């Protein structure tokens, strides 16, 4: 027996925060409220970023720039990238699920610094609104999410400065979140719970938060220097004034390569939580999983210059960064095989959560293979800045992270709301997302290999047909959000009651009521020393008496 549930406290705790849905608009300190705030806010930005992506794909159905002007295309592309990265994936895989789940997993009643947590969330909506409003003021930034100088210095200044301020705010939010996660995981563990007994998502969040704390400040410093170049006309990154654009690229990628891991490591953690529950088997290779996460964290910090193979990088540097990047395939491969081995021989229930998780594994391994290919200098110099890179990147962040976000929503929706999502609609959602995604991005590998440059509104007419296939895929992806949204709203009001533990999970969040009460448990937190003990530990019986609904 590895689960001990202490007796329950007869009198449930009362929150001092507003009741009902109003609390989601308040400066709530409850980690579950903050988690859902992150989730809903992120999803709204996902819809906006998705609309911008649709605009890009509509423009690219024809070789000429007829749907929008070229500079508008640049703005749309910049806003799409920035919104999807800084306002959707990073806040959702870290902020939303991290805040909701980590306190449960460490057996705490809240995060270590609840007020800092609320501050971190409330930095996001103003930053996002400011970023989007820049489009209506004087034109948004045009230099892509990378904001490379000299482009970012020579394009209209207002949009670029607003972009910098927004990203600084979002970076601050991310750092505050990271500090909170590190303190919660390392310091707030329930007595008796050892580090190596934590669910895998805790390790993923610990690794991610280390990356956030070490690399985000460097981006902040770099953007401050860039803003000096734009506003005060200094010459840090302006070759005309004796500056050096390569220094910007180094500093930018010192953050932005780890940023890929900030987006995908938490997704690894979430998949590691979802798979064992739905195939009723322990997570394969827990210890190797932990070491490979920490290996990715370390290697992730020393591979940034593989984004700069065509920036005049000296040969010794190319060699070092190629080798270091290829090494990342090792811990990532370990995780991939661990997930496959977890599924192997399990009693798999083919529900939406596991379908999206398996979709993630397939997409991610494809994106990973092109990633190893891109790390090789002779190959990279040919496909650099082509659609091959676009395809690779989207296989990682959409095929990887976003598939996991959907998987996690289907998995934890019953816990957060007390209602089940409709499985048939969910499977339909998965099907058109998976087909749409692959239809949209697989052809882009071919486009890139044949030399279509990225980030340009116009292209050679020979690429028209393949671009139209890609746009058809994008249309399917856009449509795929409709059954999902219908499913969520319908289930919220008319969905089946979920009960406390619909998936018969063993991790601590399932051992309280759905939705969980204020402060998570009315009694003491349960001690779960084997979160993946499927087949060994009996799932605790009805838990209704443990927590009273809020």
């Amino acid at each position, binding site marked *: 027996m590895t689960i001990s549930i202490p007796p329950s406290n007869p009198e449930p*705790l009362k929150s001092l925060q507003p009741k009902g849905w109003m609390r989601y608009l308040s400066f709530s*300190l409850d980690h579950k409220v903050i988690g859902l705030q992150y989730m809903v806010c992120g999803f709204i930005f996902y819809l906006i970023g998705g609309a911008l992506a649709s605009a890009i794909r509509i423009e690219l159905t024809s070789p000429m720039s007829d749907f929008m002007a070229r500079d508008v295309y640049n703005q749309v592309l910049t806003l799409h990238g920035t919104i999807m990265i800084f306002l959707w994936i990073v806040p959702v895989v870290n902020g939303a699920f991290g805040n909701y789940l980590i306190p449960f997993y460490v057996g705490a009643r809240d995060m270590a*610094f609840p007020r800092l947590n609320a501050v971190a969330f409330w930095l996001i909506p103003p930053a996002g609104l400011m970023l989007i409003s820049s489009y209506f003021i004087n034109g948004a930034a045009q230099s892509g999410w990378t904001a490379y100088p000299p482009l970012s210095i020579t394009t209209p200044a207002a949009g670029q400065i607003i972009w910098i301020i927004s990203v600084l705010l979002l970076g601050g939010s991310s750092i505050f979140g990271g*500090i909170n996660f590190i303190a919660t995981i390392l*310091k707030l563990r329930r007595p008796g719970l050892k580090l190596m007994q934590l669910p895998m998502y805790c390790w993923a969040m610990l690794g991610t938060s280390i990356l956030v704390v070490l690399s985000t400040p460097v981006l902040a410093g770099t953007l401050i220097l860039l803003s000096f170049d734009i506003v005060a006309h200094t010459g*840090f990154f302006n070759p005309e004034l*004796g500056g050096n654009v390569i220094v910007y690229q180094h500093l930018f990628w010192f953050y932005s390569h780890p940023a890929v891991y900030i987006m995908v490591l938490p997704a690894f953690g979430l998949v590691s939580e979802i798979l064992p529950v739905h195939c009723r088997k322990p997570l394969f290779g827990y210890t190797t999983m932990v070491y490979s996460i920490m290996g990715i964290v370390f290697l992730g910090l020393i591979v940034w210059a593989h984004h700069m193979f065509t920036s005049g990088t000296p040969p010794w540097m190319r060699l070092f960064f190629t080798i270091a990047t290829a090494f990342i395939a090792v811990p990532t491969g370990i995780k991939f095989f661990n997930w496959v081995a977890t599924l192997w021989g399990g009693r798999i229930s083919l529900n939406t959560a596991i379908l999206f998780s398996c979709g993630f594994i397939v997409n991610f391994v494809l994106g990973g293979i092109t990633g190893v290919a891109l790390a090789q200098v002779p190959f990279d110099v040919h496909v650099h800045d082509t659609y091959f890179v676009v395809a690779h990147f989207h296989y990682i962040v959409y095929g990887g992270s976003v598939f996991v976000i959907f998987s996690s929503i289907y998995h934890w929706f019953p816990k957060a709301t007390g209602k089940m999502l409709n499985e048939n609609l969910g499977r339909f959602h998965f099907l058109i997302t998976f087909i749409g995604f692959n239809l949209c991005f697989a052809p882009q590998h071919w486009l890139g290999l044949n030399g279509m440059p990225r980030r340009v509104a116009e292209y050679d007419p020979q690429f028209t047909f393949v671009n139209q296939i890609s746009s058809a895929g994008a249309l399917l992806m856009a449509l795929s959000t409709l059954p999902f949204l219908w499913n969520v709203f319908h289930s919220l009001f008319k969905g089946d009651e979920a009960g406390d533990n619909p998936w018969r999970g063993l991790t601590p969040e399932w051992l309280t009521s759905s939705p969980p009460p204020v402060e998570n448990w009315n009694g003491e937190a349960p001690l779960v020393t084997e979160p993946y003990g499927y087949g060994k530990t009996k799932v605790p019986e009805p838990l209704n008496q443990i927590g009273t609904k809020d």
Partner: protein
Amino acid sequence: MTTTTPLEKDSQSEVPEKGSTHEHADHRLFGLITFLIADGMTFAGFFAAYLTFKAVNPLLPDAIYELELPLPTLNTVLLLVSSATFHRAGNALQKQNSKLCQKWLLITASLGLAFLASQMVEYFTLPFGLTDNLYASTFYALTGFHGLHVTLGSILIFIVWWQVKAPGGQLTHKNSFLLEAAELYWHFVDGIWVILFIILYLL
């Protein structure tokens, strides 16, 4: 940038913050240390940029200017002494000598302000401005960002001083988090200055 954001439930407050009866140990200092690591990475980025500029972007001969050493050396001494005086203030509070603590805090804050004043004197006497060349821009960005830290630190010390002095003040030897946090931050800012001094003035 202030170091007081990670505020937890005050262990002394009587009204529970959110209807909670559950307390846990105070991890604010741990949070602050993590924040200082992050802040240190910002400086690390600046230093890396400066050193790279210096290595790969040689300046034209007329842009090269030798920095005078006396004033920055005096600044280094001011900050190092202020670290020691802040430590004294902390010791005095532990010994429940509030008056002595206030005295050392005021001395520390004065040293911080003297540092800022001396920095301003240096700025006004330097023969180059912010946009003159790459070296000048980096010099002002680095020292300015550090000066911002000293300014915030000095304000923080005055807040700590007020909290010790005010009747019924919150800072006592039992509840000295704010003082400890400010002291840690101040030592951090001093340490950064030493690195900055070596890289910017001596190398």
